[in-house]
């Protein structure tokens, strides 16, 4: 039984950094935009205004981060999955039929979807990545 969902895009993009650097990164990005004006194509602007960042790391290096995502029912959301690890991962959320079977180290994958049902849906790494691959699990909570 598949929950109704509209997967829109799944675009492999570019490298990621750990969460600790987000503030500096945002600041640096703003600076770069202001100073250089060289920035081009850092991802097409997505239709959805809600972006949720998800870092992928094997369980022994930090696991999914955050391990629990919260989104609103009926509102389009873009999941930005950054592989900040040293191995290839994947993303698989069976209840909503969302799959990115390969996210290479350093890459970013964006998945845009609109959850239509409230509930708690587990997601998994979809590429054997570690002795603890099966522990690389997280939970999407749709309110």
């Amino acid at each position, binding site marked *: 039984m598949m929950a109704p969902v509209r997967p829109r895009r799944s675009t492999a993009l*570019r490298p990621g950094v*750990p969460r600790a650097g987000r503030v500096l990164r945002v600041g640096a990005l703003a600076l770069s935009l202001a100073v250089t004006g*060289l920035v081009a194509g850092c991802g097409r602007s997505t239709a959805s205004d809600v972006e949720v960042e998800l870092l992928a790391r094997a369980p022994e290096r930090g696991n999914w981060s955050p391990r629990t995502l919260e989104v609103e029912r009926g509102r389009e959301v873009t999941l930005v999955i950054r592989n900040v690890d040293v191995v*290839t991962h994947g993303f698989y959320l069976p209840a909503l039929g969302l799959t990115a079977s*390969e996210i*290479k*180290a*350093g890459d970013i994958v964006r998945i845009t979807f609109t959850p239509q049902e409230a509930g708690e849906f587990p997601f998994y790494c979809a*590429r054997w990545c570690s002795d603890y691959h099966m522990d690389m699990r997280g939970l999407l909570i749709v309110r």
Partner: protein
Amino acid sequence: MRTSAARRNGIGAALVAALVGASCAGSTEYSGEVVGGQRVIDVAAKRFEFTPSVITVREGETVVLKLISEDVTHGFFLDAYETQTEIPPGEARVVSFTASRTGRFTFRCSMTCGDFHAYMVGHLKVLPNRTLSAGLLLIGLLGFTTLGLDLRGRRDRLFGLIPLDARFELTAYAPIRRLFKSRWFPLVLVLGNFIVLLVILAAGLLGGFSAGNLNFGVMATWILWWTLLMTVFVPFAGRLWCMMCPFPFLGDWLQRGKLVGVGRHKSRGLNRKWPRRFRNLWPVTATFTATTLFLGFFSVKPFATFVLLGLMLLGAVAIAVVFEKRTFCLYLCPVSGFQGLYANFAATEIRLKDPEVCARHRPKTCYTGNACGYGCPWGEMPFDMNRNTYCGMCLECFKSCPYDNMALNLRPFGVDLLEERRRSDDVNHRRGLDEAFKSLTMIGVLFAFFLTMQGPYGWIKDMVRATNVPSYGLFAGGYLALNFLLVPALFVGVAAVSKLASGNKHVPLRDVFVEFSYCLVPLGLARWASFSLGVFLPNGSYLPRVLSDPFASGWNLFGTASYAWTPVLTGALPALQTLILLTGLAFSLEYGFRLSHRAFQTEREAKRGWVPVLIFLVVLSMFFLWLFEG
């Protein structure tokens, strides 16, 4: 004389023939099995090794590799044949090719699979390995020919062509001299590099424990900077890097109180002098060796690079507060030692022009400083400087000399290797065991670096990356023993044989050991350049990606953020490495015989004492050729 020379030549020829023969013949075990006219080989990939790690096939065969992963997603890229595939776990992939190019080629993991991903390689040998045979033969012939020429007598000119005292003064051109006299130069370079250093530190910190091959800090430092240092800066321009190095910048500023203009000549810090006993290469040999022990961390983990470079930056400031001038650069910077020693080979030098001018000039403003420039921050006496070792090319002497008596010269490679000690050198105990050990330890360091980064054996990588403490301890112990006991002991043996052969019973063994250690310099530099190319050509293509997005934050500054990993010219590596090693050996042999004349007294002693060292140099070159290509 003629007959003994002929006999020696005969021995040399036999040695060469034996070595070449050994590399070609012998019972060869080919990998896998021949099925239906194809050589089929099962290859398993796991972090960070392929099994089998060395694949041997025959020229012209159709080779079928069945690839599986025993753990995470890997990839397979074969140099020269340019074939590439992904190996996802749980699936078998097949790669096939016709083994048309002979030689040894490296196959590499092409999908980031862990910290040592970039070092996950195996070797494909397509026999007969003609590149290796040709290389060994050429090395043998070079040694043989040089010996023949040397036995005929001493030659004044380098390779019989270039006079050793040939110089071309670059600063004779007014724009260059003006530039060198400007207080803004080389400060602008330092400032630029300081900004780059800050970006590297930020990228290292933000990168944390993500993949080093995708991190700006790791790539800019250990791939770009290191390769530039070993292939361009040091061999051609000596300590050119020291001219623009950002690490001493903050310390200089603190000591001088002025950024651009001339401020205090005496630091307000403790201004202590480095102990006289240690004004040599021993301390930098220690710091370099200690640093290289952590190759398995800093060369692959962004955070480890951050901590290492951060410590160096802090250390440079702290030392500048406690000690005088550039004490950090001279006696503590880990990369100062080999740069200093190898700078003696460089084709550039900063020297005085006319000794008469200096003799009349008092006080020596190049040493004491004046309103236009500081006294030599490196503690040199520019009016008496005859070697590159401790010249950081900071250009202060150009500014402080009121007579424009300093010059930047182009010169034949390697002439400093023959330089006599000067008064100022003696004070600092230079050209002694410290420099000999620096030269010798660089052999073992390269051996360990090569096996770790370009060798096929996973168990060595596991030791270096410290999968557990005891195996790391084993690596550290073995590494230190190799560098400070085994290689030096071998060279003591060579020096002893040389002394014995020379017939001179009075020359101290120590002097023979030290003199001949300098002929290892050109070969050492060639070895490191060859090795660095083996790191840069396969991995340089990560640079466009990290340059466009240094903080991995989604930038695309140059539009190259999605640039794919593409090894460049790796198929030509064996030929390139042979060429570079041959060049290095040619210089080593050229200077070795001259050093023999310095070690021994008579022409006859010098000739006889030279032969064992020449054989050692030839064998050492063959060993490294075999390591790189065999």
